[in-house]
């Protein structure tokens, strides 16, 4: 407090007479705290006021509020559900069905967009003129057309051109493609299949131990171990061996035309396919540019140094360039993942039963509880986005430059 008061005022006069204590409202620290308290009180009061006002308005309009509706029966069907669901399920169940549909398309979209984005981004820098031009054409086309139009293109133009169920394209009488979707045989697990899963688990543990050991050995002796081949052999071989030993405890349920539609098997509905295609292709174009920027951010001297040590170009990319480029790539990549997840809400335009279309749409309409439904939906998107950010930040910390 004392030193702060001395900053203001003339040091000459202060050295002569004892400093006059300035009034408390002139103390910058007190002021700062006071203003912050006022701001906080105002914000809280504003929030309370909005809440009160909404409550009063709802009551005056005779609109029911609260979250009781989540346990009442929904009474409508949903075309795609990852968990058991029927018309007699509650609105709460509908919420989970819708959320899982959103997560499904987002997670798959992130995976496809990342794979495709990295391939295109690297192709964009290829020395091969044709490849780099093709990559450029891809990027400029897909990132410059609005996503909603792309979704419509896939849904109304491409997938609408598929044949009717009776004229389906068939792949060996096991998989069928028609306007209603792609029908695939569904695996039916027989008793004993659990052992195959156990074998897979053991294989995963072995792989982790093995790669650790191989890494340590290489660090200590410089000898390389054919990790990739061994890992592949373990992951595929062990479960397959057990599968054969337990007498193939797996059968397939094939889709079959019955009445109007194919029944049985798994189906990828066109709403899902077009949304996933559009989201992946669109976001991949942005990721490709991020990857290109990341790679170009790594000094060319690194490549030259690597080549002069006799490391070939694919290993240079994998071991020298990409790890350094990732430091630049990951923060903007996180944004793209967030965008993809949020963009998945465009599902409503083509009838894919995601969170926005089903919960913030149909449920809102059937119950009339707009504020609750929208609040829940916003909270969910916020949570998903923050979770993605958190995970990506953790990963970023791992790959970030360790400063000494």
């Amino acid at each position: 407090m004392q030193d702060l008061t001395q900053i203001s005022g003339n040091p000459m006069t202060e050295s002569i007479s004892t400093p006059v204590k300035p009034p408390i409202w002139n103390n910058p620290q007190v002021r700062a705290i006071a203003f912050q308290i006022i701001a906080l009180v105002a914000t809280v009061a504003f929030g309370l006021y909005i809440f009160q006002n909404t409550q009063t308005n709802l009551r005056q309009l005779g609109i029911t509020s609260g979250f009781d509706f989540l346990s009442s029966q929904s009474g409508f069907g949903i075309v795609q559900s990852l968990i058991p669901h029927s018309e007699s399920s509650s609105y709460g169940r509908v919420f989970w069905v819708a959320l899982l549909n959103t997560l499904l398309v987002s997670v798959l979209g992130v995976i496809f967009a990342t794979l495709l984005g990295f391939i295109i981004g690297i192709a964009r820098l290829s020395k091969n003129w044709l490849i780099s031009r093709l990559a450029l054409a891809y990027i400029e086309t897909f990132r410059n057309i609005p996503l909603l139009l792309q979704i419509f293109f896939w849904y109304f133009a491409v997938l609408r051109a598929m044949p009717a169920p009776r004229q389906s394209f068939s792949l060996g009488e096991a998989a069928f493609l028609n306007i209603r979707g792609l029908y695939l045989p569904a695996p039916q697990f027989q008793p004993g299949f659990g052992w195959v899963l156990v074998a897979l688990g053991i294989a995963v543990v072995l792989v982790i131990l093995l790669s650790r050991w191989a890494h340590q050995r290489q660090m200590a002796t410089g000898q390389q171990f054919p990790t990739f081949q061994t890992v592949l052999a373990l992951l595929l071989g062990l479960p397959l061996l057990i599968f054969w030993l337990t007498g193939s405890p797996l059968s397939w349920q094939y889709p079959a035309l019955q009445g109007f539609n194919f029944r049985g098997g798994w189906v990828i509905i066109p709403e899902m396919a077009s949304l996933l295609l559009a989201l992946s292709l669109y976001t991949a174009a942005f990721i490709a540019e991020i990857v290109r920027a990341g790679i170009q951010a790594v000094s060319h001297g690194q490549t030259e140094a690597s080549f002069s040590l006799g490391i070939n170009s694919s290993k240079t990319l994998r071991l020298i360039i990409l790890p350094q480029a990732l430091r630049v790539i990951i923060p903007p990549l996180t944004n793209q993942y967030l965008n993809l997840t949020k963009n998945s809400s465009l599902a409503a335009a083509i009838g894919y039963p995601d969170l926005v279309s089903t919960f913030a749409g149909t449920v809102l309409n059937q119950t009339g509880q707009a504020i609750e439904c929208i609040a829940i939906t916003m909270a969910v998107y916020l949570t998903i986005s923050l979770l993605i950010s958190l995970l990506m930040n953790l990963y970023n910390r791992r790959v970030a430059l360790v400063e000494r």
Partner: protein
Amino acid sequence: MIPIKTLTTAATVLLLTTTGMVQAGVTLDGIKKNGFIKCGVSDGLPGFSYADEKGNYNGIDVDVCRAVAAAVFGDATKVKFTPLTAKERLTALQSGEIDVLSRNTTWTSSRDSAQGMNFTGITYYDGQGFLVNKKLGVKNAKGLDGATVCVQAGTTTELNLSDYFRANKMKYTPISYDKSDESAKSLEAGRCDVLTSDQSQLYAQRIKLAKPDDYIVLPDVISKEPLGPVVRHGDDDWFDIVKWTLFVMVNAEELGITSKNVEEMKKSTNPDVKRLLGVEGDKGKDFGLANDWMAVVIKQVGNYGEIFERNVGKGSSLKIERGLNALWNQGGLQYAPPMR
């Protein structure tokens, strides 16, 4: 630390947000101040609300709003139409974006109670049916087991569909779209086998298809769908006006008053006609409107029968029979309380 500038901005925002709050019970005042009625209609349904090439709206639902405007302002053109999807409509009314929703909306108990609405009457007695391609070879709804069904999201239709299939132990796959046009396109493309909706809508959708003759409406009617205008709960003066505008049109048909003969009918000796046309009594004052408002409604928009025939009946391409929508004394259900 929070700079003072931020605080002033916050204060401004606070001021702006709070003054814009919706208050119940002031719809009529707001309408009179605006000078027009904000009316929510369908996003494109021939016969009910449909914009022609010039952008003029036509249809039963549209005419109901025009009639209310004629009642309030003496001018049927003082309406601003807002096209809404099935999903948007109820929220638009609740939030005050529109004053009256006249959009083939089914009267149900939960909409009347929990959702804070008031249905003002029934403009069209409807029921849910199915539209299918003739090639499918289906003769009635019981033959639809296993079908893929296109339906509009957030409607009573969606719920009736599930009830019907469950009650008859049949399976179906629902594809729910926001817009009725998307459902129709999907039916044409073969994404779904069946389009389900209120029968009036099915007829309207059918004439919009590329080959209407390839499709038939199945004979089954699986639900009651009384369609009518809706206003917000808690604004009784406005509720009364919208309600009685419709009753006036029905009563006018019953008394034989049409938009053409309304001036002559003013000379009638029938006291019912005299009261309705404002020649006798002061039925205008009771509603806070001009004394001849009912005559203006009939003159500018017409009686119920005229509206029906013009938009969905003989005078239209839909050619729907009066059926349930005939007057009560002609075997139908349209019945209005007396003007007294």
